[in-house]
């Protein structure tokens, strides 16, 4: 008996030696191979595959006919006859050259979703194949002109003659019934491989309303402690900077004097000995206002002289509007003039208090219990803003945007975007620092470029006037560091495409709330009808999407993006629909939101060539198809103006791309690309129905167009010399 140990047995038998002995004896008797008829094994496999094929084809299950009671007797009799006939036939026939009964094919590309475009399609057979009949039986959908090469007799490479595969396309390679094995066995059922080629590239910047940071990068420089004499209480006022970004002013711990510290030599000075609150620097950083003993003092930083403004009630907020000081108190909002003070308004409600005044002097933030409201100083109208229990974080430097803990709002109280939690500093160049107990992050005001600069404690960051230096609080110390210079800002077109990408990913994942966060009120209304559906339901289900076309309207700077949604069931892509999304933003520091969405008709796959991508430039429109086309039919790709009249163009065709050139598209004018049903692929399939895409004449300054975005695998993306390359699959033999 083998002396093996099985921990489970020890546990089961609870250490009883006699039980263990019996258990080990049972385990030591090996099961020999049961008598097996190989023909049964193969027959059962074939039966299973027939059933599987019928299921995929949507036929009735093979057994369903047998379930009818009245048929059982007939079926039984028929089965006996068939078996008898089979036995007689088998006995009387000479032995076949091969016992293989069922052709199988496989490929490393089978069922893959992100197959490289520059690719040969390897097809592996389970038996040696007859080359001519097998090649003749190969069908590729979408219609593609292909060449063949063999590695031995069981591995066939199917190579597109154009040199690559179309992007974003589901390919089906079928070995039809005509294929024969070398032993003469004919393929009884078509065998199909299915795979999907990789997507078109998308721009990289992130403009997500709730972004995820890019990879942490330790890119801060000059991080050092300025002073340990910083208050730890929860009443910390923002620091103030000198104009040269070399001196920081702050309110120290009790007795809360106004202190300064030099970044140059670390020297510290006490400017005002005690009782200081709300220090506020003027826009050109030459004067500093603060409240002391219930009155306002204004310190001239150059001369050190101080001026007082007497107030009967202690101010709760100070703000410099250009060179004029505003303040708010329980009596209202006031403005300082030369030797006088003017009440701008009284507060609408005696329970209101002024939290902050916008740097443009047009609005103020009021608190009333748990509620916040924006007060328009000219109309005295108020608008509720934020959520219950929200709190003020910052204003944008131009005063048009208000940052609360819950997000960024415009002056009407409408939320423009979300913002990650933390303390915020908004620079004049619209770069935002977000500090927290876990790290310091930087992003553009529109939400793009969200980057973690450093991990650690970075509370209350405050940009210096130079836009790169900032101070922050760590414990009871004030620190300084320099942020890396922001990269090249993304274009509006790129940002809009990123919003579309994030929006579509949320829909793919069924995240309805996140998807809705990319819609403005009109966008939400567009999806509220259910056509298009925000989260498509049912079968076939939404599997993936890709961008067919995008453009910036040079007139209003809105961005139109045509996306194609692909629906699949049973692992096979069945159909697609297109949506045209229009994205807008109120001002350049806002993120784009989807303002409108319209759905196009549903398209079935395998019904003729389809447009994959449309590239626009003022002089040229290029249209990429999924199929190789009959060059004589490409005149069916036409352009119309807004009156429906044809636009003269030179039409060229090469490798699935139809190019309309010699155009003089007027920026902002409306055009329509029309693909007529006369267009044929190399398999002589016509376009299933007329296909239209509307667009406006692009501007030459659009960076997306200016980049000359290449079709993936398009002419510029292909190797211009050397052998045909297969970067991600095994290479065909030379």
């Amino acid at each position, binding site marked *: 008996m083998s002396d093996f140990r099985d921990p489970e047995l020890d546990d089961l038998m609870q250490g009883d030696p006699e039980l263990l002995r019996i258990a080990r004896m*049972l385990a030591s008797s090996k*099961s020999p191979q049961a008598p097996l008829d190989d023909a049964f094994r193969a027959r059962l496999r074939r039966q*299973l595959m027939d059933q599987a094929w019928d299921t995929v084809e949507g036929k009735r299950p093979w057994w369903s006919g047998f379930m009818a009671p009245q048929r059982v007797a007939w079926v039984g009799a028929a089965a006996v006859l068939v078996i008898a006939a089979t036995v007689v036939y088998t006995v009387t026939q000479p032995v076949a050259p091969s016992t293989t009964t069922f052709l199988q094919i496989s490929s490393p590309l089978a069922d893959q979703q992100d197959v490289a475009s520059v690719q040969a399609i390897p097809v592996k057979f389970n038996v040696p194949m007859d080359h001519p009949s097998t090649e003749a039986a190969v069908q590729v959908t979408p219609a593609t002109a292909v060449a063949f090469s063999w590695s031995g007799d069981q591995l066939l490479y199917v190579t597109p003659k154009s040199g690559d595969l179309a992007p974003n396309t589901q390919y089906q390679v079928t070995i039809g019934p005509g294929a024969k094995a070398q032993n003469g066995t004919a393929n009884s059922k078509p065998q199909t491989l299915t795979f999907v080629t990789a997507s078109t590239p998308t721009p990289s910047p992130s403009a997500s309303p709730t972004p995820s940071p890019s990879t942490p990068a330790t890119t801060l420089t000059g991080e050092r402690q300025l002073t340990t004499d910083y208050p730890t209480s929860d009443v910390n006022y923002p620091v103030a900077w000198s104009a040269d970004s070399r001196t920081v002013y702050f309110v120290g711990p009790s007795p809360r004097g106004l202190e300064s510290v030099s970044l140059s030599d670390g020297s510290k000075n006490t400017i005002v000995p005690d009782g200081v609150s709300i220090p506020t620097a003027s826009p050109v950083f030459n004067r500093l206002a603060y409240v002391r003993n219930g009155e306002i003092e204004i310190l001239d930083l150059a001369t050190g002289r101080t001026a007082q403004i007497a107030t009967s009630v202690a101010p709760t907020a100070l703000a410099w509007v250009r060179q004029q000081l505003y303040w708010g108190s329980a009596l209202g909002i006031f403005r300082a003039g030369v030797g006088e003070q003017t009440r701008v308004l009284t507060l609408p409600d005696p329970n209101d208090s002024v939290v902050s005044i916008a740097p443009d002097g047009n609005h103020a933030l009021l608190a009333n219990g748990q509620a916040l409201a924006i007060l328009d100083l000219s109309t005295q109208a108020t608008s509720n803003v934020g959520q219950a229990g929200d709190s003020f974080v910052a204003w944008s430097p131009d005063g048009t945007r208000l940052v609360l803990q819950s997000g960024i709002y415009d002056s009407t109280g409408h939320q423009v975007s979300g913002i990650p939690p933390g303390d915020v500093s908004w620079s004049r160049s619209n770069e935002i620092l977000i500090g927290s107990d876990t790290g310091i992050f930087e992003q553009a005001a529109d939400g793009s470029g969200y980057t973690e600069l450093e991990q650690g404690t970075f509370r209350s960051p405050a940009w210096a006037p130079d836009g790169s230096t900032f101070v922050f609080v760590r414990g009871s110390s004030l620190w300084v560091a320099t942020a890396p210079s922001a990269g090249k800002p993304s274009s509006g077109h790129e940002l809009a495409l990123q919003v579309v990408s994030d929006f579509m990913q949320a829909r793919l994942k069924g995240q309805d709330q996140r998807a809705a966060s990319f819609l403005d009120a009109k966008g939400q209304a567009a999806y509220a009808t259910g056509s298009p559906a925000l989260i498509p339901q049912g079968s076939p289900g939404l599997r993936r999407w890709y961008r067919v076309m995008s453009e910036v309207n040079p007139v209003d700077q809105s961005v139109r993006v045509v996306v194609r949604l692909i629906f699949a069931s049973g692992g096979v892509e069945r159909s697609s629909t297109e949506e045209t999304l229009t994205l807008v933003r109120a001002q350049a520091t806002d993120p784009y939101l989807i303002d409108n969405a319209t759905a196009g008709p549903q398209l079935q796959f395998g019904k003729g060539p389809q447009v994959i991508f449309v590239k626009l430039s003022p002089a040229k429109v290029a249209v990429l198809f999924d199929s190789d086309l009959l060059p004589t039919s490409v005149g069916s790709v036409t352009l119309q103006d807004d009156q429906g009249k044809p636009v003269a163009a030179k039409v060229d065709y090469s490798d699935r791309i139809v190019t309309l050139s010699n155009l003089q598209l007027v920026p902002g004018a409306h055009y329509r690309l029309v693909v007529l049903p006369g267009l044929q692929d190399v398999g002589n399939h016509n376009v299933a129905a007329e296909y239209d895409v509307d667009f406006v004449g692009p501007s030459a300054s659009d960076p997306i167009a200016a980049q000359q975005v290449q079709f993936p695998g398009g002419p510029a993306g292909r190797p211009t010399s050397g052998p045909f390359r297969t970067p991600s699959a095994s290479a065909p033999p030379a």
Partner: protein
Amino acid sequence: MDSSRDEEKRLIERAKRDPREFGALYDRHFQQIYRFVYSRVREQTAAEDVTSEVFIKALRAMPRYQDTGRPFAAWLYQIAVNAIADRYRTLRPTHALEDFHDLSVGGPAIEEEAAQRDEIRRIWRLVEELPLQQRTALVLKFQEDMKIEDIAVAMGKTPGAVKLLIHRGVSRLREEAEELRPAE
């Protein structure tokens, strides 16, 4: 997770998406299921019938198959156990056990080996007299070399219940063996 399990998961996902991919799972598991079924029914035609039923049922149920982290084979065994139980609900196999179990244990001297072989034969004969649930649990554990968790899946029981079945079964074998043991 080992690469074999990864490969199995991949095959399962493919078969769930497209039933035509079920062939790879069939190829992978046919032998062990057929052997198990044969060991229970001990007749080739019956084993073929039951094995066919197992795989046809599995193919039909593939879209609803949920990967619980247990081997796919455990699910096939479950179908097989049920199919065998349905077929032989009132019958007991009648073929001699020594016809099936390979008793060629290696190692000890010839006389000792012969005695051991006799005892194993006797024990397995006793296994066939056990109640169905105990018998199935013992066969899956000792003949099919399955883990308790996988047997639990195959039998639709908790691992604790399977442990109890095996412990009771082996205890019963000890009692029966004592009774059959000739006096020294």
